[in-house]
Every structure is written in structure tokens, then in C-alpha cells.
């Protein structure tokens, strides 16, 4: 593109876009840099009532610990409160939620994209409208049957619920992605004597990864950040990270350990950091292939 004469940007435009990006980066990242920095302070500094600059210089941190930085929040969360147990639980929940979501979603999304009958459209629409059901109401409805069947509190139950709740979104995204894979590909395979499933297995699966990975990222984020479902459906042994972080924040009658929550939240970002860096290329190329062209 840069070869085109008409494409040469004016100085003003370069200035404008550059400063816009810088401003956006500042707005997007500012609160997190602030949080990461503050997670190494004590609570009276990070949540200072006297002077917010204390969060930067760590006045109280110095007075309490002798140094401007302290790992007390991290120590408290990971060692005292055994946050690693929760991160293992989250890892299990996230892994299986993404895996099952995508398996079901790919099959269903492929069928919806290739059906061509009206009912496929209505199915998609009804799924979309059901997605509007507030999670809090759904979860309250699950409780009694889950207790009666004795499946409450287990990771597997939560995984299935998360998969189900995320299906409408997954189906919608994957269906639009499959629409963009030319019909001829699998249909010619079927002319050659493949069954529908074989065509799917040998022709579609090899080319669908970009879209699947992108959808998977959204499933991942849903399961990773879920609070409403995990907080009510898991017992403390199986608790995932976000409900645990919420429990650091205290109850009506007790103050909590806010710095544990901050440290835990920063730690919870680390795997996401690597994940995004690792998948960044796939996300973009996945969407490029048209995952969301509805």
C-alpha cells in the first residue's frame, strides 16, 4: 500500500493517529500499570485516604516494612490463602470449558451454516434470545436440582453449565465463520463419496482453526472471568480464582484483605498476558478469515 501516491499520509494525519494511539494506550493500560505498581504497596498506600501520591512513593509501605516495595500481598494470597489451589481449579475449568464448547460449537455451527433450511435460522435466533436470560436467575434455578442429584459443588457441573451458557455465542460466531468457507469444498468431497461427517473431518477441520481459535479465546475469557456461576455452584474446595478474589474483599461485618485481592488479580493477569501474546497472530488471522461476518 505504501507505494501508492495517494496513500502518502500528511504530517497532520500522522500526528493525529499517533497521538490517538498513544492516548488510547494510556487509557487502556493506565489503570493496570497503576494496579501492578500498587500491588507491591501496603493497603494504606494504595488506597490512601490522605494523599494519592502515596501509592506512587509508598510512604506507609516504607514506614511499615522498611522498603518502598513489599510482596506481602502476594505472599498473603499465594502462601497464606493458598491461592494456587484456586488457580489449579480455574485451569481445569477453563481447559475443559474451552475444549467442550468448541467441540459442540464446531459441530453445531457447521450444521447451521450448511443447513439452508429456515429452522436453522430460527434456532440461531432463539439461542440468541435465550442468551439474554440473566445468569443470576439461571443459577438460582439450578441450585435445587443440583443438590438433589448430588452434583452440586463439583468442577464438572460448573464446566457443563459454562459450556451451555456460552453455546449461543459460540454457535453464532462459528456459524458465521463456516459460512465463509466455500460450500464447494465439502460438497465436492461428498460428491467423491465422503459422508457428511468425513467431509467435515477431512476437509473442514484442517481449514477451520483460525476461527475456532478466535472463538476459543472468547470462551476462555468467559470461563476465566466468570464470577456469577462459580461463586454459587462451587464449594470452597473447588473454588475458582475470581470468587476467591471476591472473598478477599470482606463481608458486611468484617473488613477483608484488599491487597490480597489486588495481588491475586495481578497474578491472574500473567497467564492472560502470555496467552494473548501467543495467540495474537491467530486471533487476528482468525478474524481475518471472517469469523464474525454475520
Amino acid at each position, binding site marked *: 500500500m505504501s507505494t501508492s501516491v495517494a496513500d502518502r499520509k500528511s504530517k497532520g494525519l500522522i500526528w493525529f493517529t499517533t497521538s490517538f494511539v498513544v492516548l488510547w494506550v494510556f487509557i487502556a493500560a493506565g489503570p493496570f500499570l497503576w494496579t501492578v505498581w500498587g500491588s507491591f504497596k501496603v493497603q494504606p498506600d494504595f488506597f490512601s485516604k490522605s494523599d494519592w501520591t502515596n501509592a506512587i512513593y509508598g510512604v506507609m509501605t516504607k514506614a511499615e516494612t522498611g522498603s518502598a516495595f513489599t510482596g506481602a500481598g502476594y505472599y498473603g494470597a499465594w502462601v497464606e490463602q*493458598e491461592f494456587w489451589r484456586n488457580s489449579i481449579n480455574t485451569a481445569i475449568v477453563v481447559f475443559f470449558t474451552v475444549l467442550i464448547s468448541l467441540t459442540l460449537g464446531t459441530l453445531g455451527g457447521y450444521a447451521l451454516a450448511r443447513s439452508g433450511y429456515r429452522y436453522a435460522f430460527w434456532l440461531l435466533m432463539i439461542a440468541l434470545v435465550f442468551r439474554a436470560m440473566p445468569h443470576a436467575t439461571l443459577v438460582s434455578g439450578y441450585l435445587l436440582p443440583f443438590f438433589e442429584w*448430588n452434583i452440586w459443588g463439583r468442577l464438572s457441573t460448573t464446566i457443563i453449565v459454562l459450556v451451555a451458557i456460552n453455546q449461543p455465542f459460540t454457535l453464532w460466531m462459528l456459524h458465521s465463520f463456516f459460512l465463509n468457507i466455500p460450500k464447494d469444498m465439502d460438497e465436492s468431497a461428498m460428491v467423491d463419496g465422503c459422508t457428511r461427517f468425513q467431509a467435515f473431518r477431512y476437509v473442514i477441520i484442517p481449514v477451520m482453526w483460525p476461527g475456532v481459535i478466535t472463538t476459543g479465546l472468547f470462551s476462555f475469557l468467559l470461563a476465566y472471568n466468570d464470577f456469577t456461576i462459580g461463586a454459587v455452584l462451587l464449594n470452597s474446595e473447588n473454588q475458582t480464582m475470581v470468587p476467591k478474589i471476591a*472473598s478477599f474483599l470482606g463481608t458486611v461485618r468484617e473488613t477483608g484483605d484488599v491487597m490480597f485481592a489486588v495481588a491475586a488479580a495481578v497474578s491472574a493477569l500473567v497467564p492472560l498476558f502470555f496467552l494473548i501474546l501467543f495467540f495474537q497472530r491467530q486471533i487476528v488471522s482468525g478474524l481475518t478469515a471472517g469469523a464474525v461476518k454475520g
Partner: protein
Amino acid sequence: MSFMKSFAIGTVATLMATAAFAECEIASGNVNVLANDFPALKAVTAAAAECTGGVTVSANHNKDFRNITVQALTANPAEYTAVVVANSSIVPLLNEGLLRPLDDLVAKHGQGLSKNQLITIDGKIMAIAFMANAQHLFVRQDVLDQIGKPVPATWEEVVETGKAIKDAGIMDHPFAFLSMSDWNLGEEFVNMYLGHGGEFFKPGTAEPAINNETGVATLNMMKDLVSLSNPDFLTYNTATVVPIWKSGDLAIAQLWGSSGGELLAGEGAAEGVAENTVLASAPTVAGGDTPASTLWWDGFTIAKNISDEDAEATFIAMMNGISPAMVEANNDAAVWLMDAYNPGPAATGVAATATGGAEPYPMLPYMGLLHQAFFEELPDFLQGNESAEQTLADIEAAYIAAAKEAGYL
């Protein structure tokens, strides 16, 4: 089993590993406790998990435990054998009849219990209380000395003292209470209304009776108080106010007694704050003679839908959980109701409020609905958007709609 146990005990147990507990042997049974998530309750369940023998003891601490108790105990067999509740959270379980009367177990294993720990309903023991809590006044002695006023004994004096502090230019917003527009704000109304000697319901019915002069007086007192509080008062809960107190920006506050230990210890507090923090009884109001506060207890209950064997094992384990040894090891973690408790300075406010004759929080089946109507409608009045009478009428209308749905009216 050993894994379950070590998990349930968690960190509290490692801290207390040195404390020697009385022997607790239970041959068999399954004990599973559901409780709120704060240190005093963890100490209790950890001590319960000390029991040995064929029994399995585990505990689930969850701050959202209220959301699952009814369903968890409705299942048969119940998911949990015991639930640690307070005056208000026991109500839904009683309404549904999910709790087991404890008279036989108390007769058999409850020798160490004192009379006031037994929560009896219609003559049957339904819960064993083990700790108490109440909101009461916290004051800064040094600030009061500066303006030459004593510790306020009435809410009118609180207003007067607060104004004096403001006028002296010491603080702009000298007062705070837990006025966040959720359950907290409803609790403040309940406290103040009871302090005015009000009745919430028409006698013998579930019909509300708050749209009256007492209600108006209560609202006006609350408005006087919020005018001394920071304009952000509708976001003030324990987690917000305690740090402000520590930073030295408050002179008078009404907080839970359970914050006392932390504020007196003064970790992370500005210089001179902890030393000058004084815990006093909740004040009286409008010439009444009982403190405008409600008394709360926490106690354990045992599920109905479990086997007798499990119920007995649970009772024995929980009795070990509230044993004298546990109290000695965690004396300052709470205001315990057991004889072994040795009240420390952090308990003075709760003790003064209780001996002053404050009312217990009403354990009525429909109180929760009214409480909710309070905090849904009060912010309009406190922000000056509508009159006291209109707000009281709104509260009654909101309550009636909810109570009709729930079948109380």
C-alpha cells in the same frame, strides 16, 4: 479423608497447631459445615475439624452462603449437616422447616453450654449461639478533648458534637456510619427506628406499621447524621469506613463491634489514631433509654434431612469447635458467648450496648422483606429527592408487594 481435613482446616489450623485441644473422638459420621467467610468462624470450624476417629469433618466458607442454604438443606440427604447462621439468616431455614430441634443432643452432649446460648423457638432449641455482635459508637478521644465534649450518649449529642467539630474546623465530615445503599442502610434504619421505640408491624400480623411519626423522626435523625458525613455516604460499608477511620479523617462512627479489634490494634493507621480510639455503647435517641442498635448472634444449626448418626457427630464436632480451648486460643477474634471468654478491650462497645438493653434484631419470617424495602427506598429521601412521608409510603408499598408474593399478606 486426611486431605479433606487438612483443606478444611486451612491456615487457621497451622497457626493454632500449638494450641492443645480437648480430646474429641467420634467413631463415625459425616460432618460438613457451611459458614460465612471470616476468621472467627474459620477458627470454630478448624477446631471442629480437630475431632478424630472414623468421622470426616469438612467445612465450606463462602461469603455468599446465604444464597445456597435453603436449597442445600432442602435436598435429602442435605449437602451440609450444619450451617452457621445469624439472627437474620436463620429465618429462611426456619420458614422452610429445614432445621433439626436440638433438645435431645443438648441434653446428651451440651453440658458445657450456658442458658443464654440456646436459641429456642416455641420451646424447642433450634440453634446454639456462640458469638455476639452489634453496631456501636467509635469515637476519637483526642478530637473530643480538643472541643471539650464528652463521649456522646445520645444521637442528638452526636449531631451536636459533630457540628462542633465541623465548626471548629477540625474535620469537614466528622461522622460516618454504614450507610451504603444495600443491606447496610436498611440495618441503620432498623437500629434507629428501634431506638425510637418503634414497632415494625401491626401486632399479630405481617402488615407494616412504619408510616408514622416514629418513622418520620427516624428519617430526620438519619438525615441530620448524613449531613455530617461525607457526600459519598451512600457507598460507605465496613470496608470503606474502617480505612477512613485509620487515616484519622473521622471523629465519630457507628461500626460493627467486630471492627473493634482491628481499629484498636491500629495496623496501618495514622499516628495517634489507634491510641485515641474509644469504643462506647451505641447512643440512645429521642429520650429513649435503650441504645439505638440491634444485637446479633452467630450460632450453629443442624440440618433436618440427615441421619441421626450424622447429626450427633456434627453436634459433638461443633461443640468441640466452640470448646473453651478454642476460645482461649482465639480470645480476641470475636465476642464469644462461652464462659471461657475473657472480654478484652475490643468487646467493651458490644458489652455496653448489650447491657444498655438494645433489642435483638427481629427474628421474624418477613423481616427480611421489610429490611430490603428500607434500603431500596431510603436513598431517595437521604439525597433530598422526596419527603419523609412519601418515602415511608414507598417503603410500605414495596414491602406489601413483596410480602404478597411471598404469601405473608
